[in-house]
C-alpha cells in the first residue's frame, strides 16, 4: 500500500512541479531508517520523496522560518508545494489564520497518517547504531540490526501525540494521497489522557515530575526552533536583553520560566503537532505542557487551534464582555 501511495505522490508532484517553486517533502535520510526534509525543485529529485510512518517531521515550519521563504512573496512568485500529515495541516491552518501565509501561497499534498514512529522508543528495543534496514509490513515495524531481525508492533512505538490524534487526515489540502485514516481518538477525554494522568497526581508529585524533567533541559532551544508557530526567530524574548525577562543562569527557575513562556506564547495557538517534543535531544515531554493549555482552551473556551482558517484564536482578540477569561 505504501508503495502505491508513494507512486501516486511522485506522479502528482511530477504533474504539479512546473507550476510550483518547489515541493517540500520527506526523503530517506542517510541512516537508512529516519527521514529528512527534501526540497524538490527539479523533476530528477522527485524519486527521493517518500511517505509513511517514518515521516515524523512537521515541514510547515520551513514555510515561515529561516532560511526564510518570503511570507509576502514577490508578485508572480510561484506557490510552494508542501506535504502534510493531519497534524501538520493544522499548523498550516494556524499560520494562515495569523497571516504568516496566504492560502494561495501553498499547494498542499495531503497525506492521511496512521501514526509516526518515535525512534527513541525503538531505540530502547533495538541498537539503532547498527540498523541495516527498517521497513514497515502492515502494522509491524521490521528492523534488521545486522544480527537479528526485530519485528515490533507499530502501535507500541508511535510518537506520544499519535495516541490521542483526532485529525489524522489533513484538514486543508489540494490533493490527497491514499485512503483516509481512522482517528485513534474522537473525544476530548481520549485526546488528553497523559494530561489527565498527570493532573490526577498530587501537587507535590507534579512539581517533582516537572522539576526532574525540566532539570535535564540544556536550553538548546531546539523545541522552540522546531515549533512552526514560534515565529519570533532571533527576537525571542528568551534571549532578549531589553526587556530582560530571563538571565542566562542555568537553574531550574530559568528553565521553568523558559518553558512556560514558550507554552504561554502558544496558548490557543498550539496545534499539538509534537515537533517540540520530537526535537528535544533530552527526551523531555515538552508538548505535555502545551497539551494542558490546549485542554483548558477546549474545555473553557471551546477552542481548538488549527481547525478553521476563518476562526479567531480566543487570546488573539479582545472582547470586554467575555466572562470566560
Amino acid at each position, binding site marked *: 500500500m505504501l508503495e502505491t501511495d508513494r507512486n501516486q505522490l511522485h506522479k502528482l508532484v511530477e504533474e504539479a512541479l512546473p507550476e510550483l517553486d518547489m515541493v517540500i517533502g520527506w526523503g530517506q535520510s542517510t541512516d537508512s531508517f529516519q527521514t529528512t526534509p527534501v526540497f524538490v525543485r527539479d523533476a530528477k529529485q522527485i524519486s527521493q520523496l517518500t511517505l509513511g510512518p517514518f515521516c515524523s517531521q512537521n515541514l510547515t515550519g520551513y514555510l515561515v522560518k529561516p532560511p526564510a521563504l518570503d511570507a509576502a512573496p514577490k508578485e508572480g512568485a510561484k506557490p510552494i508545494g508542501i506535504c502534510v500529515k493531519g497534524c501538520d495541516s493544522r499548523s498550516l491552518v494556524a499560520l494562515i489564520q495569523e497571516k504568516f501565509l496566504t492560502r494561495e501561497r501553498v499547494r498542499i499534498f495531503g497525506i492521511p497518517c496512521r501514526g509516526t514512529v518515535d525512534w527513541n522508543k525503538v531505540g530502547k528495543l533495538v541498537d539503532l547504531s547498527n540498523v541495516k534496514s527498517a521497513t514497515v509490513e502492515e502494522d509491524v515495524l521490521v528492523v534488521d540490526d545486522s544480527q537479528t531481525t526485530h519485528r515490533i508492533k507499530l502501535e507500541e512505538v508511535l510518537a506520544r501525540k499519535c495516541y490521542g490524534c483526532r485529525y489524522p487526515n489533513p484538514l486543508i489540502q489540494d490533493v490527497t494521497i491514499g485512503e483516509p485514516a481512522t482517528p485513534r481518538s474522537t473525544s476530548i477525554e481520549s485526546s488528553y489522557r497523559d494530561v489527565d494522568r498527570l493532573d490526577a497526581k498530587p501537587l507535590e508529585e507534579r512539581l517533582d515530575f516537572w522539576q526532574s524533567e525540566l532539570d535535564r533541559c540544556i536550553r538548546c532551544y531546539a523545541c522552540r526552533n522546531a515549533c512552526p508557530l514560534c515565529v519570533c526567530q532571533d*527576537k525571542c524574548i528568551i534571549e532578549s536583553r531589553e526587556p530582560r525577562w530571563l538571565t542566562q543562569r542555568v537553574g531550574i527557575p530559568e528553565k521553568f520560566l523558559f518553558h512556560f513562556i514558550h507554552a504561554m506564547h502558544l496558548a490557543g495557538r498550539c496545534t499539538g503537532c509534537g515537533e517540540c517534543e520530537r526535537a528535544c535531544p533530552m527526551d523531555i515531554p515538552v508538548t505535555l505542557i502545551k497539551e494542558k493549555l490546549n485542554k483548558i482552551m477546549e474545555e473553557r473556551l471551546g477552542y481548538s487551534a488549527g481547525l478553521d482558517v476563518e476562526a479567531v484564536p480566543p487570546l488573539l482578540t479582545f472582547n470586554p464582555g467575555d466572562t470566560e477569561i
Partner: protein
Amino acid sequence: MRIGVFVCSCGTNIAGTVDTKRVASEALSFADVVYATNYMYTCSEPGQQEIQKAITEHGLQGVVVAACSPRMHEPTFRRAVEKAGLNRYMFEMANIREHVSWIGTDKEANTRKALDLVRMAVAKLRFNAPLFSSKAPVNKRLLVIGGGVAGIQAALDCAEGGMDVVMVERKQYIGGKMAKLDKTFPTIDCSSCILGPKMVDVSQNEKITLYAASQIESINGYIGNFTVDIRKKATYVNWDACTGCGACVEKCPSKKAEDYFNEGLGQARAINIPFPQAIPKKAAIDAQFCRQLNGKKCGVCAKICPVKAIDFEMKDTIVTEKVGAIIVATGYDLFDYSVYGEYGGGRYPDVISGIQYERILSASGPFGGHIRRPSDGREPKDIVFISCVGSRDASVGRPYCSGICCMYIAKQAILTKDHMPESNSYVFYMDIRSPGKNYDEFVRRAQEEYGVQYIRGRVGKIYQRGDRMVVQGADTLLGVQVEVEADLVVLATGVESSSGAGELAEKLRISYDQYGFYMESHPKLRPVETNTAGVYLAGACQGPKDIPSSVAQGSAAASKVQSLFAHDTIETNPQVALVNERNCIACGKCIQVCPFGAIQWKELRGGIKKAEVLQTVCQGCGVCNATCPPKAIQLQHATDNQILAEVNELCA
C-alpha cells in the same frame, strides 16, 4: 540614580498601624536611596516643600512617596517634583494606606509589607525614564447621550455657552421619563408645563443637533477628539418632510400596537406620534404592527400623507459625528413588578405600576386624566399604594433605596384626593424617606391634610375578591395583620439601571456597578466625572435620582465640559504603548487585540512592515504588551523591566 524616599504618617491614618519612622530609616539601605524621611502629612504644603527642598539639597533624581492611593495624590506629588525641576514621571508612589494600614492591625506585619511596597517602588523607579506629553487639539463639540431632563439641561447649558451639541435619544421623542409624569413633587407643578418649554428649546436651538430614534453604534478616540457612529433607526417616515400633522395616525387601520408611552394601558396605532407635545413631533412606524411592512396590503398612511413622507423602504443609517466631550444621561428603567408574584402585577389588570398610574392621572393619558381602573373603566374608590417594590430588597437583587418612590406615592395620593374627594388612599410603607427641601413637609401634608392612611408594614399577598382586590399585610406599629379591600393597587416600582446600560458602558469604556449604574470618578469629589477622561455623567444613569438632582447634575456635567472646552488643546498622556521596531516581528497580534484601534501598520523602506501606536488613541491598557510575543511593544511607565524589577524585589 539618586533616590529620595518620603514616608507619610497621614496623621494616625498610616502611623497608627505602620512604623513609618522605621520604614524611612530602613529605606535608606535600598539601592540608590540617598535620602529618606518621615513626615506627618506629606501632601500638605510644608510636606511638598520638604520634598522640593530635599531634591535641591541632595541632588535627587527620583522620588518615592509612600502614602495613600495614587488615585488622589499622584498628580499632586508629580506637580511638586516637577516644580523642583524633575520630570514628573521620575516619581513613584507606594500605597501604604489603603493597601496596608487600613486593612491590617498587626503593626509588625504592616511595617514589613510597607517596606516591601517601598522597596518595589524604588526598584521600579530605577528603571523610570522621563516622559513628555504632547498637545492635541480639542474639538469643542459635545455629545449628549439621552434626551431626558438631565440630558436636556446639560445640552441647553452648553448650547447657551456657545458650544455645538449633538443629542442622541434612543426613543422617538425626548423628555424621558419626566415627559410621562403628570405632576411633580413637592410643588405639584405640571410636569409637561415645566419640561415642555425646555424640550422646545432643544428643538429650536441652532446649536443643538438632535438625533431621536437613534442609538450609539460605536465610540472611538479620546478626550477632545471622539469619533461617534450613530445609528439612526428606520422610522419609515422621512422626518425632513413630516410635519407632524397626524393625519396618518388617524387613518392607520392597525390599532392594536403597543402603546409604550402610556405604559401599555392603551393601544396605539402602528404609525404614531406618542403624545401631543412630542419633540420632535414626527410620526414613526412600529414595524412589528405595521400591515404594509408585514406583507399585507395597506399603505394607507402613504396615501394620506400630504407631504409624501412615508418610506416603507427606509433602512437604518449610520452617521458619524466628531465631538470633544460626552455627557451620558441615559436615565433609568423601572423594576419589573411581575417579579413579586404575590402582588399579582401583570396578572391582575387593576394592580398597576406607579408610572402607569402617572399616565392615568395625566390629561394626555389613556383616560384623558380621569382616574379609571384598567379592568372595567370604573372610577376606583379605595386605592392602595405599596412602596419598595423592587427597592431595599436583597432577595430580588435590589438592596438599594430608589429614593423617589416615597415621594411619588405621596404625590399620587394627594392627586387622587384632588381628583376624587370621596376616595380613600392607603400607603403600605417600610420607612418614609423624604430628605429633600420641602419633601418631608409634603409627605406630612398627604397624611394630615389629605387624610392618606399610612400603614407601616409589608404586604404579603394581593388577591381578587369579586371585582375588587384584597391587600393583606402587616401593620408593624400596631402589631396586627391588616386587610384592605381596594379597587386599584399601585405598586411603587423602584429604579433600576437603563436597559443596555452595560453595552453602552463598554462602548464608552466607563465602569458600572453590579446594578448597571455608571460609576462616578469619586463618590464625593468627582461626582459627574468618569474614569474615562472626557466622559461625564448626569442624572439617574449614575444612580436613582429625582428631578432636581438630575437637573443639577446636568448643569454640573455641562460646567465640566465648559471648563474642558475653555482650552484649545489638551496634554496627551505619555503613558502609552510604544513599539521597539527593532524587535517587532510584524505578526500583527497587537493590532488584532487592541480594543481601541490604536495600532496600525507602518511601512519602512523596502516594504518592511512594523506595528505603530497612535499615541493619541492609545489608552495605555497594556493588552498589546501582554499579547506581543517578543515584547517589542512596551507600555511606557509600566514597562516589562519596571514590572520585573518590582516582582524581583518582592520575590527576593
